[in-house]
């Protein structure tokens, strides 16, 4: 860039906070069909969090039922509806939209783009979320109640339809899942295109932040795997409504075929969920340890390895199903292999933290807590990949404990880490650190109190999805239920913190964490279209401790020679 062009640019151009020409610049924009990726990101996150609370409420009723061995608090049909809808809401209405929200908000900012590739498609994908959310909630009120076949919806149970109505909970469930699949495919096309085509000049693949790498890897899985689930859901819907017999064994169908369709997507879906959280860990640890991400290139490439391997492990959900021995052994080895790229990441994070100058902010505490619970889940995960052991604990509480350590341990704690880390950027205000730490303590204790006892229960042989159980399981279930109620309470300081900080929090400035990254070089909250001038990237990310600048220009439009206070350029003190 010639120096002349810098001089002619008016240096005191006020940053434009107007979200969009003609659009309201207040809370109302979050209820409109906005095409600004930041508005859509927050819309996703807030919508998802409301459904998280609903799914959590259902779980607390379940824990109330399970605090005694008998089926006494709710009817068996109600319990079965509760666990089905708990799983469905938590996966399709909470984790996927929440992660799409983070990706929407952060990816354009981190790659130096002004918006997503297809802003209208982006908004349309988001507005499908409330649509299928309402369908799921409405299914509670149709005759016969919501789906009661578990979130796997295995036939023939899912085909039984005791009400005999065409409009029943199961049909609405399948419709909602199919719509969710369409919404996710739209989101994936958008995110993958954005990352491929819209990186700022100079941002080669190995200068891209790790979070964008993980989002890219995760969304590739959506593009490859979701068609299988959507096809399976549509075939099941046809079996249920118009009487085809793809999966009905009494008329020549094969129920095991459905399991393959289902897990071909739904196992990789776990990586769709956890990969972006790996990205959050990779972003958060360097900032609060003041060190570069250890082995950055290996860490980001292992995300793609996980994507590839995740597509060839699905039969480990079916080790006790109607599968032959050779298939069980083959998938046992592929499943174990996925622990290699995952292990590389874990060790790299530990090495990033090691020897750093740690600041245990709320974000850092949640990231460290999430990493520890993920490690535990990874170890029980390797145990589960061993087919002969899995045969004992398959479909028991051991599995329930394992995946809740992943989803509620790693993913939800990783989500909280992300929110605390980027809250000042999203709102321009600081949150209350004390409330954040209280939130962390309650969450961490609650998670271990509810999910750790599930492991001994599973080893003792308590099946999952039971409304009643034998008295020998009572002790651990009481503890788990108490942990569940504590986990419910733990959301209160978070909600209080977010609502009050957003309204009354102290001004955060552009870069309160002295973090390195394009999103920290623009004002908080970032103006519409993010960058006054598209940044030109000259360094890899995470240059903590070195003096190299990240960009050769100032994305706010001023000359690089007079950087704005508070903008970290390559970590050099300003």
């Amino acid at each position, binding site marked *: 860039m010639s120096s002349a062009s810098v001089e002619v640019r008016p240096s005191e151009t006020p940053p434009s906070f107007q979200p969009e020409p003609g659009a309201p610049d207040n809370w109302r924009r979050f209820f409109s069909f906005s095409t600004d990726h930041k508005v859509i990101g927050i819309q996703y996150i807030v919508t998802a969090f409301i459904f998280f609370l609903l799914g959590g409420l259902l779980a607390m009723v379940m824990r109330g039922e399970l605090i005694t061995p008998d*089926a006494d*608090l*709710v*009817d*068996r*049909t109600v319990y079965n509806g509760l666990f089905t809808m708990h799983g469905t809401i938590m996966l399709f209405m909470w984790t996927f939209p929440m992660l799409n929200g983070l990706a929407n908000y952060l990816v354009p900012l981190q790659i130096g783009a002004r918006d997503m590739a297809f802003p209208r498609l982006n908004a349309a994908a988001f507005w499908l979320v409330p649509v299928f959310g309402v369908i799921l909630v409405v299914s509670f009120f149709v*005759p016969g*109640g919501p789906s009661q076949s578990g979130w796997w919806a295995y036939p023939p*149970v899912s085909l*039984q339809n*005791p009400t005999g109505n065409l409009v029943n909970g199961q049909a609405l469930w399948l419709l909602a899942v199919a719509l969710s699949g369409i919404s996710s495919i739209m989101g994936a096309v958008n995110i993958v295109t954005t990352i491929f085509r819209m990186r700022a000049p100079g941002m080669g693949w190995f200068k891209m932040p790790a979070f964008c790498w993980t989002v890219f890897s995760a969304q590739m899985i959506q593009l490859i795997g979701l068609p299988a689930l959507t096809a399976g859901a549509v075939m099941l819907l046809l079996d249920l409504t118009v009487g085809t017999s793809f999966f009905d*064994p*009494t008329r020549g169908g094969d129920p*095991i075929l459905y399991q393959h369709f289902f897990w071909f997507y739904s196992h990789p879906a776990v990586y769709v969920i956890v990969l972006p959280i790996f990205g959050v860990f990779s972003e958060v640890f360097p900032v609060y*340890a*003041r*060190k*570069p*991400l*250890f*082995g*950055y290139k*290996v860490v980001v490439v292992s995300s793609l390895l996980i994507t590839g391997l995740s597509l060839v492990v699905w039969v480990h959900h079916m080790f*006790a199903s109607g599968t032959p021995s050779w298939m*069980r*052994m083959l998938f046992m080895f592929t499943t*174990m292999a996925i622990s290699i790229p995952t*292990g590389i990441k*874990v*060790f*790299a994070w*530990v090495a990033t*933290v*090691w*020897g*750093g*100058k*740690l*600041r245990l902010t709320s974000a850092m505490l949640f990231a*460290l807590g999430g*990493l*520890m619970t993920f490690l535990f889940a990874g*170890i*029980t995960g*390797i145990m589960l990949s061993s087919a*002969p*052991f899995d045969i*004992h604990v*398959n479909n028991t509480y051991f599995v329930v404990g394992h995946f809740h350590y992943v989803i509620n341990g790693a993913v939800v704690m990783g989500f909280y880490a992300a929110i605390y880390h980027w809250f000042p950027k999203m709102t321009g205000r600081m949150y209350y650190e004390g409330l954040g730490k209280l939130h962390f303590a309650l969450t961490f204790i609650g998670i271990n109190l509810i999910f750790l006892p599930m492991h001994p229960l599973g080893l*003792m*042989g308590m*099946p*999952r*999805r*039971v*409304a009643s*159980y*034998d008295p020998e399981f009572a002790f651990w279930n009481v503890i788990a239920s108490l942990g569940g109620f504590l986990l419910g309470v733990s959301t209160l300081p978070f909600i209080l913190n977010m609502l009050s900080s957003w309204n009354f929090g102290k001004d955060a400035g552009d870069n309160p964490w002295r973090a390195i990254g394009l999103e920290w070089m623009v004002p908080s909250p970032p103006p519409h279209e993010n960058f006054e001038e598209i940044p030109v990237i000259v360094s890899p990310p995470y240059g903590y*401790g070195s003096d190299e600048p990240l960009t050769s220009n100032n994305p706010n439009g001023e000359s690089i020679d007079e950087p704005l206070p508070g903008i970290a350029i390559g*970590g050099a003190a300003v």
Partner: protein
Amino acid sequence: MNRVFNRRRILGLMALAMANLAISYWMGQQAYGWLPPQASSESILVDKLFSFMTAVGTFIFIGVTGTLLYSMFFQRAAKYDESDGPPIEGNVTLEVVWTAVPILLIIWIGTVSFNTYDQMSLLEAIAPPMLETVETVPGDLQTAVSGDAAEDYPPIEVHSRQWSWEFRYPEANVSSTELHLPINQRAHFKLTSDDVLHGFYVPAFRVKQDIVPGREIDFSFTPIRIGRYRLRDSEYSGTYFAANQTNVVVESESDYKDWLATAAAATPITASNIAAEDFARATESGISLGWATVEPAPAPTVNYTHSEEDSYE
């Protein structure tokens, strides 16, 4: 290099690793106590595998969380220290090591698991006469337990339904809602379902197999301990899934033969069945929203039935 890897430091690290090894070994031994009684040959194999994986897992867990906790306690930035940590971007040797070690570990765990599964022969027509626990660590003692014995008992038919279990011994003309098995003899089964997926699961035997409607699945294992154990439905099968359980009795061969003879002579009666009884009751306790349920199959009519109150291990 000298400063980082001096002798004191290496000795200290080795002492920590030895302590971790000792704790991990101890955890591996504890793991046996977390499981139900070992009532089948398969359970001895599976428990040994679980103990081995628990020990390996504990070692990794303590190593990683110990390092993180050390950092959290002793490597914090001082309050006004705004400087950065050392700009270390990676270390090729270290990265090669922590890629190679997990590869070797999973080859080890995978081999042990493969051999364990192979010995169990759950889906095979013929199992080895003796099942051997696999070798895990060098010098580890191997145990052999009975597998397929000379005496050849005909397969038992398992009929699963929404929501009851029925076991038929065709040669002896016996049907029962309680499964009886002779000790130290390979038990062979033909698993079938009349309606939806069910799961044949006996925690004390560590064996499980989904039952698929429209298929007949051959399944076998060897009970080795006299007693009464729980048999549970392990694949979600609808409304009364949780109540779909019964007992397995393992007894001596003479007791078993007596039982077959007595049962064959008895007049068939209708067994008690929780699902059918609950369904018959017009209103149930608790919050009922009146959501529809599949009607349970009629309680099975068998010439031997058992009481729900029977104790089990």
